[in-house]
């Protein structure tokens, strides 16, 4: 067992964990932060994407011990003061989700993408989200949501 200290969505935790425990299982099974789901076992789908010290990582490829001393932000910590992040809003407004299982990872990846490239082209969005699979939407509305969140595409009115 190894002792780790993390801050997850603004809350500080200190825990004894097995060195092999994946960060995603630490979040889900130990901390009850179940907003981050697991979609595969080969790091292909991106559903478990979270931010580790501000950068997107797949929490299934990070060991909990590697997050020692780090700040983790999950989909559950993205909104601030009850206000959804612009990417969350855009996903809703552009109907960029259906079943919603890929959505937490997709949103966390998109937030990271926009941090690195605030005004991406459509192709850059598509390539930037290549590591996140969605089986429901055909990606078009996801791409539009990210473009909208970047201020490049108008939102829809209901």
């Amino acid at each position, binding site marked *: 067992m190894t002792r780790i200290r993390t801050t997850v969505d603004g809350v500080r935790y200190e825990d004894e964990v097995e060195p092999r425990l994946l960060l995603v299982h630490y979040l889900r099974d130990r901390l009850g932060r179940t907003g981050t789901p697991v*979609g595969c*076992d080969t790091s292909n*789908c991106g559903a478990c994407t979270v931010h580790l010290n501000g950068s997107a990582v797949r929490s299934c490829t990070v060991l909990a011990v590697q997050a020692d001393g780090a700040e983790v932000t999950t989909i559950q910590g993205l909104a601030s003061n009850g206000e959804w992040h612009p990417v969350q809003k855009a996903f809703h407004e552009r109907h960029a989700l259906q079943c919603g299982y890929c959505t937490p990872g997709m949103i966390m990846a998109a937030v990271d993408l926009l941090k690195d490239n605030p005004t991406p082209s459509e192709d850059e969005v598509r390539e930037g989200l290549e590591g996140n699979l969605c*089986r429901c*939407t055909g990606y078009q509305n996801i791409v539009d949501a990210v473009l909208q969140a970047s201020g490049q595409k108008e939102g829809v009115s209901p």
Partner: protein
Amino acid sequence: MSEIDPGAVALEAADQISQPAAEREVGRRRLRKEDARLVTGQTNWTDNIQFPGMVHMAVLRSPMAHARITRIDVSAALERPGVLAAYSGRDLADEQGALPCAWPVTPDMKHPNHPPLAVDEVRYVGDGVAVVVARDRYAAADALDAIEVDYEPLPAVVDMERALKDEVLVHSELGTNRCFTWPFAGGDYDAAKAKADVVVTRRFLQQRLIPTAMEPRSVVVAPIAAAGEYTVYSATQIPHILRLMLAMVTGTPEHKIRVIAPDVGGGFGSKLNVYAEEVLALVVAKRLGQPVKWTETRSEGYQATIHGRDQIQDIEVAAKSDGTLLGLKVDLMADMGAYLQLVTPGVPLLGAFMFNAIYKMEGYSFTCHGVFTTKTPTDAYRGAGRPEATFAVERIMDELAAELGMDPMELRRKNWIQHDEFPYTTIAGLTYDSGNYEAATAKAMELFDYDGLRREQEKRRADNDPVQLGIGISTFTEMCGLAPSRVLGSLSYGAGGWEAAAIRMLPTGKVEVVTGTAPHGQGHVTAWSQIAADALGVPFEDVEVIHSDTRAAPQGMDTYGSRSLVVGGVAVHLACQKVLDKAKRVAAHLLEASEGDVEFAGGSFTVKGSPDAKLSIQEVALATFASHNFPEGMEPTLNSDYVMDPENFSFPHGTHLCATEVDTETGFVKIRKYVAVDDVGKVINPIIVEGQVHGGLAQGIAQALYEEALYDADGNLTTGTLVDYYVPTAADLPRFTTDRTETPATSNPLGVKGVGEAGTIASTPAVVNAVVDALRPRGVVDVPMPCSPEHVWRALQQGGAK
């Protein structure tokens, strides 16, 4: 218990009454009610569920495609820390029952016993042989290593044609690998063929696909052992069917099982099943008296969750030299895999009624052979039988056009049912109630710039451009709204095709819609709210939709086959009408008018000739709650339910056009343009319809270009992870141009047809036709799916070899 003053409750409730909606909801681009929790991570996936004392189950799976289990010893697993129990198939043999197949398609269909854990013999890689139960998922996975199994290898048989020779039997006790032969005919194909000037034959291969819903399967069983009560949480599309089947399989009384499908992350048919792990979790929870969870890993699911498609299609089309279609002959082999799952044998037969598609002809002959192989069982995958049929007919129409030297659209136009010929009874015996293929095609051709792209194609051909342009057409239809119960009965299916809805009018005028559908991404909560808001004249926001819990929504046939709106949504509408009938009687009483003089519009009851006499439906709901001074015989409730059995299937259709650029040097295919004009009848919510079409297109294109589940000769799944099985990404797919025509269905009061599978069914042949069209001048007449660079390159090397 304290006294409740109904008057005070009523007054409090009255404060909460909202004003009626001003606008019509149906047809509005309503953003989804479902989204709030999904974009914030406040979800309730089955794997999220934790209970005190919950233990984790892991399944040991066969590494061999076919083998006899000569010894199995789980005792060492029990020595591992945190392990509570371990059972082999033999240990559970008396309790685990057999997994059900609800569709015996012929009286002599071979139906092998299907134990959730194999007892004597394993028949595919992934067949379960033992389970371990431990305090967490890591300990359970670790302990699997300690189970000792001795296998005596038996030969695998992965190829259907070889399997039909019966040299290697998947189930020796059956004496054959032929599960069934199902013949079907309309008109006289041989007589039609005798008149033909041209006969074209092709063999098309429907590769095996893995549905890959983003949420892996998961099940939690929470027992109250002393009471013999079990709550089953499952990532399933079919909570109601699952409850019934768990009762039948395990002998647990049906009323002691509650099934809840919490948030479910996609299905596409893969969660339309009753799985071994659902049964095993129940059996183990019974034994241990503790909550049990099992969640598959993705790679485990690729072996243990059903696959789709996998057919060999021998197609023959007969026509006159002017392009008039005479007949179609279809000879199918359909791979069942090693066992029959819930509807495995019925899937290819759903296509039997769709090969003739939108075309008129004199003779049609269909035969399907179901074949056992030592592979993961197949079952319904988005479209289920209909994509296979649509692919074959739309592909062979292009081949026939090439043979005749006709434009492929001209050939289709000449043979399709004209819009003034509806209702039209097809050669397969279905009556298409409505459609307008001309209108959808005209719109698609315009959006696509068909003529302009044909000109560009000519130029690239003339220039011998290494990147050739191809144009593919798919003028498809499908049968949706599964299904009229009498039709299912005639096909020997084990259940009806109805759907249930109930409306609960709360005292404040808020509305609970209880539906028997089980949404897992389709947006029923939003769409059903729109239907109920319009029918009852209440605000969209005032409607809540309750679903997917057999205790809260006790009656249902669940969600698959593009049925939910056409059957379940219509049931909601009709249940609302019953609410209005009751409310009208109450309103007449309250307004002291005769019922015949009371009218309902915009959420209010009025009396003819008395403009001041008016009651909102919310006021009527509150008065019904109080029920003071109700006359004798007037039931104090507006709550109503309706079980809808559809009179016919619905028949969405559309014209999809695809332009591909095919690099003849590398074999790489790029979709240059994709136009989909769909006619799904009346639209409840356009954004949901567009989303369904987009996602459907992605899955159909994935079959055309990217995905293929492969087995080696020993029966190993060589595409067993998401690394090897290529699900397309945002970078692989084009921007789609989608539009609609709207020809209402005449078979239901909403005029709706269903949209869940349309994009998948239509797109695969459009893309492959475009790839073949690009290469046809080089002698290519087919490219096997997926049209990967390798397959395209090989087709080019073999160009001209027909």
